[in-house]
């Protein structure tokens, strides 16, 4: 039988280890918060750990005073919303027919091959860039949405989830005279909330965090999404552009260092995602379970 004492030791050790590792995962965010709210002298003396010292919000005031930040924020919100609509719609429209058997959907094999090729082979950076360029999509929000609009991973997730839904429901709907599209919308989608939520989360996170497409497809900084703005402006931060009149008008700017400004900027750009995912957690755990490698 099990040694009761050794089990207890293990449980305590396990809880401690997991807590410590979880703390390591939180560390960067805690450090960001601490540095971005601290005063200049403490940050420069390198005394900020995990708690703000000399609490002040001047870094954030500086960021929010820059109209570029809000332009980029809007660009990101726009691409994320449009991207979500387009991608989720396409995922459903592709996954539903492909979830049917060859008997019902005779051309299935052809389409499976058609989409499978894109999973194993791609044209890479330069040809994709040239296509976007030829279509005159440079500087348009669609250049950030259309090239990546069909994500096979999501299609597979959705497809496998559809397959777990009993076929009798569909037969009943079809007998009642509903078409395929109506059956999909009325029968399948309401039952697929966990995977719809999971895929929604994937899409939102990808769009919010994408920066490279913004960098190559947008050549006006006004059109940069937030992460591209963060990448180009903040990681190469230059405080010398602060004019003396600006300083005279707002003496608080003296409290800013490059480090706290950068931290504040990163925090402002990532916070929305960090606030959303804990609420979707129960969905994505379930959606992944039913839709993933069970193939």
């Amino acid at each position, binding site marked *: 039988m*099990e040694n009761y004492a050794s*089990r207890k030791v*293990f449980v305590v050790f*396990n*809880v401690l*280890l*997991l*807590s410590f*590792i*979880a*703390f390591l995962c939180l*560390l*960067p965010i805690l*450090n960001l918060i601490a540095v971005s709210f601290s005063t200049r002298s403490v940050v420069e003396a*390198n005394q900020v750990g*995990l708690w703000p010292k000399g609490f002040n919000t001047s870094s954030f005031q500086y960021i929010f005073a820059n109209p570029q930040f809000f332009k980029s924020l809007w660009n990101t919100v726009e691409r994320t919303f449009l991207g979500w609509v387009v991608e989720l*719609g396409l995922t459903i*429209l592709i996954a*539903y*027919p*492909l979830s049917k058997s060859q008997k019902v959907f005779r051309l299935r094999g052809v*389409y499976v091959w058609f*989409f499978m*090729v*894109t999973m*194993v*082979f*791609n*044209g*890479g*950076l*330069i*040809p*994709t860039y*040239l*296509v976007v360029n*030829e279509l005159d999509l440079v500087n348009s929000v669609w250049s950030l949405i259309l090239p*990546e609009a*069909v994500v096979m991973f999501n299609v*597979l997730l959705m497809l496998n989830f559809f397959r777990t839904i009993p076929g009798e429901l569909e037969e009943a709907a079809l007998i009642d005279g509903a078409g395929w599209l109506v059956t999909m919308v009325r029968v399948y989608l309401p039952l697929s909330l966990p995977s719809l939520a999971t895929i929604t989360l994937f899409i939102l996170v990808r769009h919010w*965090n*994408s*920066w*490279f497409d913004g960098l190559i497809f947008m050549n006006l900084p006004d059109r940069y999404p937030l*992460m591209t703005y963060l990448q180009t402006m903040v*990681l190469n931060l230059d405080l010398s552009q602060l004019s003396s009149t600006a300083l005279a008008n707002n003496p608080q700017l003296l409290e800013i260092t490059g*480090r706290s400004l*950068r*931290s504040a900027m*990163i925090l402002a750009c*990532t916070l929305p*995602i*960090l606030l959303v*995912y804990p609420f979707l*957690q129960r969905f*994505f*755990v379930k959606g992944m*379970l039913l839709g993933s*490698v069970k*193939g």
Partner: protein
Amino acid sequence: MLLPGVILTIIFRYVPIAGLSIAFMDYQPVFGFFDQRWVGWDNFEYVFNLPGFFNVLWNTLFIAVMKIIGNLAVPVMFALLLNEVRNRLFKQSIQTMLYLPHFLSWVALAGVLVDILSPSSGIINNTLAALGIKPIFFLGDPETFPYTLVLTDVWKEFGWGTIIYLASITTIDPTQYEAAIIDGAGRWKQTLHVTLPALAPVILLLMVLGIGNVLQAGFDQVYNLYSPQVYRTGDIIDTLVYRIGIVDVQFGPATAVGFFKSAVSFVLIVIGYKMANKWAGYKVF
């Protein structure tokens, strides 16, 4: 129903694949696509003879393979540890925290890492110093840099990686545990003889599918963390393509490198799928 998806796939997937023919052209952006001069294998010859090309290839392989191994082993371990936690609230909060880094973009994380890994002012090196360890130049020392990449990548993704294993653990038939207990198996024996074997197919499957990623060293991460002083060990195929293609505007050679990568990955992915199908009965669709 499939039409919109098919059209977009043709435009943004199939046309670029056809565009790989740029690899065989002396591509001048001022001329149209059909007015270019064909140069055969010249671009390939050019890039294979670049000083350090095989170094870049090796870096890519090394970093990617280490990441694949780390991202397989570490999540399994933590899934098993999390599985032993009985308190649901504690388990869920720990999970929420472990998932957190997955949701940060490499742009944001790079900014944070530069800060906390700094040899002079970073919180990590400060802690090491307090323990009497010499500061480590995580991002600036070519010897350390690849390991920093692997470590930070595993740190970012391991929590997310546990989901798939935790999900598989919940599908294990409870009677198997009951049988093991009747046979006198303790917790550890149960893990060893029931849980791990039940996870084996999933681990095998992810491993085999991971074969296709051995040239995927992670552009986002490397681009945001590297600097010329660590090119020797940190430069990868994707960053090289970016510098040749977008920075130097040499479309032909950049596409040649991309083509090379695509072709190798293609072969490996197909091998991986074939093996997955044979051993785990896995079908993509």
